[in-house]
């Protein structure tokens, strides 16, 4: 690993000015579980690494009736360690519990997973399903971007020179709503998604009809994918197996995966459907107030 300068920022402004000065030769360090590996394996280079874990704004979260404001650097273990978050955003917890093993979750953050912008990232379909807004600070001030528009290519995103992701804003958990995330991996842990699928639904008061839904996929395209048409098509449909199968077919059709060491095109397209169906089942059951465990 080449040597680099290390700075600890304590405010967002300080981080932004450090990052702006070095441009694309600067990297943000939160958990480091992607960055340190990439620097070590010469996949990314940096002259400056800015640790942002001492910036209070990035390391806190608040759950109110308006929703969840999640600091970009909050490590995964704090998310699934909070019972209120587990109850309100179980899909987020599904993701946080499977990003690496426990040692990784002690450090890795959802914000970091998003900024790493892997097509196979385990949190991004969840964030898309929950319709999260990304809060970004930069030399020009602050701005927001819907998470579905955040990633632009493998490893790339909308962050410009000097910009820092500060917070992820989750809409309030609506009544009769539920979210779920599932991925397929050949092992049961410590693996990269062959395909990942996030689903969020809001049902009618009787829990029978889907009022709104958002579906997203990982590892089937250069960026995590929001299935806008398939999501819209679910509105007004009964929450039944036939409906889920329609969504599954739509997901398989829209998936444009590649052949690589983790799976084939045909298998991934097939899995996209299987996982969308299963994650929809999970989201609907949770919307009805039932328990659903993605690992069983």
């Amino acid at each position, binding site marked *: *690993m*080449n*040597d680099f300068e290390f700075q600890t920022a304590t405010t967002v402004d300080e981080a932004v000015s450090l990052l702006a000065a070095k441009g694309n030769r600067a990297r943000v360090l939160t958990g480091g579980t992607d960055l340190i590996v990439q620097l070590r394996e010469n996949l990314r280079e940096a002259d400056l690494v800015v640790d942002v874990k001492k910036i209070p704004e990035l390391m806190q979260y608040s759950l109110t009736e308006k929703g969840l404001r999640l600091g970009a650097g909050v490590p995964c273990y704090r998310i699934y360690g909070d019972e209120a978050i587990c109850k309100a955003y179980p899909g987020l917890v599904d993701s946080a519990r499977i990003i690496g*093993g426990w040692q990784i979750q002690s450090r890795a953050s959802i914000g970091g997973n998003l900024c790493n912008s892997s097509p196979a990232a385990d949190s991004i379909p969840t964030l898309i399903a929950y319709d999260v807004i990304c809060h970004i600070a930069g030399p020009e001030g602050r701005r927001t971007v819907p998470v579905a528009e955040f990633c632009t290519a493998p490893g790339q995103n909308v962050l410009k020179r000097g910009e820092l992701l500060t917070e992820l804003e989750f809409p309030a958990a609506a009544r009769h709503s539920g979210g779920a995330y599932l991925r*397929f991996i*050949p*092992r*049961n*842990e*410590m*693996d*990269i998604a*062959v395909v990942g699928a996030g689903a969020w639904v809001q049902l009618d008061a009787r829990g029978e009809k889907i009022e709104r839904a958002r579906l997203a996929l990982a590892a089937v395209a250069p960026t995590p994918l929001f299935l806008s048409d398939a999501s819209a098509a679910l509105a007004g449909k009964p929450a039944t197996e036939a409906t889920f199968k329609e969504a599954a077919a739509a997901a398989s059709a829209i998936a444009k995966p590649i052949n*690589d*060491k*983790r*799976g*084939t095109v*045909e*298998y991934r397209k*097939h*899995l996209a459907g*299987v996982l969308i169906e299963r994650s929809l089942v999970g989201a609907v059951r949770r919307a009805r107030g039932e328990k659903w465990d993605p690992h069983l």
Partner: protein
Amino acid sequence: MTPKSEQKKYKVIGTRPIRHDGADKVTGRAVYGADLRLAGIVHGKILRSPHAHAKVKSIDTSAAEKHPGVLAVVTRADMPNLKDKIADLGEGSVNLAHLGANVLAHDKVLYKGHAVAALAAVNPHVAEEALKLIKVDYEVLPSVTWVMDAMKDDAPLLHNDVFTKSMGKRASKPSNVPTHIHFEKGNIEEGFKAADVIVEREFKTASVHQGYIEPHVSTALWNQDGHVTVWTSTQGAFTARAQTAELLQIPVSQVTVVPCEIGGGFGGKIAVYLEPVAAMLSRKCGRPVKMVMTREDVFEGTGPTPGSFMRVKLGATKDGKLVAGEAWLAYDAGAFPGGVIGPGAMCVFSCYELPHAKVDGYDVLDNKPKTQAYRAPGATQAAFACETVIDELAEKLEIDPLEFRLKNAAKEGTRRVDGPVYPRVGLVETLEAAKNSPHWKSKLEGKHRGRGIASGYWFNIGLKSSVAANVNNDGTVSLIEGSTDIGGTRTSIAMQFAETLGITAEAVHPRVGDTDSVGYTDVTGGSRTTFATGLAAHEVALDIQRQMRERAAILWECDASQVQVEDGAYCHKDKRLTFAELAGQLGHTGGPVVGRATVSPEGASNAFGTHLVDVEVDPDTAKVTILRYTAIQDAGRAIHPSYVEGQMQGGAVQGIGWALNEEYVYSDQGRMENASYLDYRMPTALDVPAIETIIVEVPNPAHPYGVRGVGETPIIAPPAAIANAIYAATGVRMTELPMSPPRLWAAMTKGKQS
């Protein structure tokens, strides 16, 4: 599960004492290779080929040499030029010219990851920076990584000085097939004529890695007096010494190998990689040089076990008797000749009484790292093929697969296809134990579930072992043995010594000696350590006992022959001294008592196992879940049952990994695409259930306590057992390893369509 009668017979054997090196290992104090700290130590790194096959036209190290902090640079030009010479490494032999070219490439690189140059610097980061400054001019050549492609006439040729040896004849044209092995017994045509049912299938397996958690590591000091000391992680200090001395062309007496604690080997830490390079760097810079591989180096530069293509044909009569078997096996050897086709060919039919058989085996060069032994090298592939065909035959004959195996099981007097006739062996007993096991008797219910069974066979090689012992005046004994301890063998050796001498396991203090401290001992491999070094320890105990009787005789002024040994105590008429009491009197009866023994048991003895597995296959994703697993094995005599179980469980889980997910994934350019633990996918704790074990004890006639080595057999059956279970669950016969989700899904989809 040690039979009750045996527990009475022995005081130490069959008990479960805490291992002697245990406290050091749970506190982090044990010194593994990378933990070594020496004054003035510097750090070496290796530059590796980015190409699978290329000519090395030139290497320019000038910029690296000038880089601040770099102390020495080594290329092929610095190493002695070696002639073809075969060195015996215990579990396999090696051509030194090839070994040398593997350690640092000559005029060609033969696989991605092949070592090209090395340097030493003040710290590993500086060394890594400097590697980028070495300029190598390559002429890229076409490459081949699949064994059947490598056998084609128009395949890229790896070596133009390798000619096929077949039935004692050498071919006239160079080829990628160094060796053709042929075994035959009976009359194969007659045999198949007598068969009512014949099944013939083709199989493929991917290269897999041993996967030890500790990367290869060596530190060498070429001292100013010319003596070379190497601290290393090796399965055999003496074979490491022999290879290092030969590659450096210095006498073995000029090299001391100090075996550090070793973080796993499974056959992959016998050949040297770093030792001679670190020594040469040390010679150049005059300081101790430590070299540690990265995990990527380990995958790309060290021994996987062969990928293979196999065709197996078996015939049986209506009443379920096997009559004939034919196998055609091609295993890749990687970049240099000498893979593990030999034992593969010997083992393919080793579980069965087969009157007529024929086996052809081919050792095949391709652009992969030189293959190395991996736990029962060659047998797992062959068993995957044979045991799957056995299962299909049983199905066609409508005979229970366990009963079919029992009916045809190899036993005392069975002649293996390569010649040897078995003495008393325990395959039938493992099958009977399987039949009576709670697992086999349980009912497997639920959709998409299936049960599989398979058996496996491996040798216990004999070779040479040395042990020495010093009696301390408090009644303890310091034991020095030459076998490096990968999994608790200090204790299993010490327990045999203690049993013979009639003292407790705790009263023995075993240590692994370096090559200047203990007699020659072959590698920890071939399931031989508890068997052969244990045998040596038993003989040392007899030597000590003889001397102790002489000391008692001096005290009691009688003849040594009049001193009896009862329960470890020394007695004459009404006089009686415990071992400890007598040890306290050595000072005035002639001084210290030192014992020694060296053994060289001839031939190999035999260990069989049978595994049962229940699986569930997700019908949508084709992911296989192991629901229940039982490993049954003939251990001859389990010295420390916990560590016997541990070998069975560990081998089973390695076999599960091999069956389901582990493989070298190659790009079209012959580059390994998954050289990390993340993408190589060894099983985690969450991927396997409890592994139930049943130890069967059919004593080995070639060992005083009946020990059979247990280390290797447990990896052999799992892929076949799982394939058979998958068939029971899905109706799909898998003939390719690994049976990973994409591959099984494709087969299930094809099955549905047809």
